[in-house]
């Protein structure tokens, strides 16, 4: 199978500091791949290159092939055509990733209108469908509303709906449940899992929480200081880590078991 996203020997330097230091990652179509690591490990940076984002003033080398095109060298206009359409992003904090002064409708339709030849009405109808799909109650009313009317979990659902709007092949989800309460997180995780299965889209899921990683992702990359230290099928890796860093991370977690579930 040809990978949807293939990152080969990615190196990102900022001044004399190597932020990402030779990373290889691949994501197959329809696959949920996890990228784990602590702060400063370079995981977010690596994932963002899928959308062609690199920090200002940094130098990136290697290849980031999305559907065969290298997003590191792609012209800006082509990059824009990809973003939001073929590859979408969901951010950590739903409180800040939705524009507080724009209606939900605008935030769900503007990229549809930019990437698709749709009428405003069509885009709007699609947006309502999306809201239904992420289980926002009363979507017809919700769409005229503003983000501040919704709770954190609801906002994250809206952000997910926005990412789904153009039926992307890949979604990059960056710590999307970190800011949420566990009960809310559970709902979001189930929703993401279900959406990926239903639509066949792939997801690159970034988190520092290995338990979340365990329940959601199929394959896992563990990063540390700009390098991938361990990779494999998620449950295998977490059940029997080979790298000491992975082991240390697991040990740092509070001991939990499945008895009570």
């Amino acid at each position, binding site marked *: 199978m040809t990978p949807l996203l293939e990152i080969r020997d990615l190196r990102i330097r900022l001044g004399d500091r190597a932020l990402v230091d030779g990373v290889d990652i691949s994501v197959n179509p329809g696959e949920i791949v996890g990228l784990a690591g602590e702060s400063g490990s370079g995981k977010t940076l690596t994932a963002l290159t899928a959308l062609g984002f690199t920090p200002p003033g940094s130098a990136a080398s290697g290849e980031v092939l999305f559907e065969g095109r290298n997003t590191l060298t792609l012209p800006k206009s082509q990059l824009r055509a990809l*973003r*939001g359409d073929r590859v979408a992003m969901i951010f950590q904090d739903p409180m800040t990733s*939705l*524009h507080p*002064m724009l209606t939900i409708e605008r935030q769900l339709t503007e*990229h549809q209108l930019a990437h698709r030849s749709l009428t405003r009405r069509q885009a709007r109808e699609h947006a309502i469908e999306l809201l239904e799909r992420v289980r926002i109650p009363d979507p017809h009313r919700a769409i005229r509303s503003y983000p501040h009317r919704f709770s954190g979990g609801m906002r994250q659902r809206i952000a997910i709906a926005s990412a789904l709007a153009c039926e992307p092949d890949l979604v990059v989800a960056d710590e999307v449940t970190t800011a949420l309460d566990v009960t809310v997180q559970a709902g979001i995780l189930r929703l993401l899992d279900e959406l990926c299965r239903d639509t066949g889209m792939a997801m690159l899921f970034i988190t520092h929480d290995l338990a979340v990683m365990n329940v959601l992702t199929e394959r896992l990359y563990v990063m540390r200081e700009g390098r991938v230290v361990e990779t494999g099928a998620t449950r295998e890796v977490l059940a029997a880590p080979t790298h000491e860093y992975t082991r240390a991370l697991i040990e740092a977690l509070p001991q939990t078991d499945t008895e009570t579930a």
Partner: protein
Amino acid sequence: MLMFVLRRLGASLLLVLGTTIVAFLLTSVLPGDALTARLGERAAANAELVAKLRAELGLDRPIWEQFFIYLGGLVRGDLGLSLQSNRPVTEDLAQFGPASAELALMATVIALVVGGGLGIVAALRNNTWIDNVLRAFSLGGVSVPLFWFALVATSIFSTTLRWFPSSGRLDAGVAAPPHVTGFFTIDALLAGDLPLFGQAFEHLILPALVLSAPMVGLLMRFTRASVLDVVGQEYVRAAEAKGLAPRTVVFGHVLRGALVPVITIVGTAFASLLAGTVLVEQIFAWPGIGSYAYRSATTLDLSAIVGVTIFVALVYIVVNFVTDVLYGAIDPRIRRA
């Protein structure tokens, strides 16, 4: 919501009352007497006449009595008689207020366009040489002594280049357009008199440009800071991640988010333009509230000083109110309530 408006209104009224009291007391306890200046050389020597005039103007009463008489008038919309112009202060304010407002609004528009525009550019070119040059430019605007700048500007653009007329709101002897707003440019347009509009505009533009200098600087810096603040927000990254065109991102997302603090500063800056108008109006012979304030102060024309003070306090309150309304229009979070 209604309670909120009422409370605000109440607070505003208290503010006006407070301002009135302070202005009244200050001007009353200060030495000096407008009456003297008004009397001719010979008449001033006539003690009987002076006493009679003082009585007529109520200046012989105790100060608290004067104050209550004044307050009584104030309630009826009577601000007393200006000694220098020899007519009701309200009439003076009605005449000079719009002149200054027109000037200040024009300066604000210029500042919004120039300062706002350059502020956006500076923010988007953050930490480049362009940013530094623009920053120097904005600080220059804030730092320039207006009275001197006005002199230099008239010397270049009126006297030497003759691009702009040097003084007044209209050419001499040209009748003002029919009074609707008191803004000659707008009134001329309303009257359908294009040449008159052109003339009014020509007179307006140079003093407005000079007056806008500090505001341009201020707005530029605020727009820059505010845009920078917003550019760092995740929702801007989100907009980019949606593949929107840069123009859409800047104008649709960044500016929208950056507007509230900018509006705040426009509001406060507008209300405080008066200090600038005093100096600028002096030099451009602009018959506005600034020159009126200066004349009132130097002639110790009590009613006029208090009148100007109340007027300015009212402008301050109105501007605050307008900014609040604008906030609501821009930011749905504030609209709630």
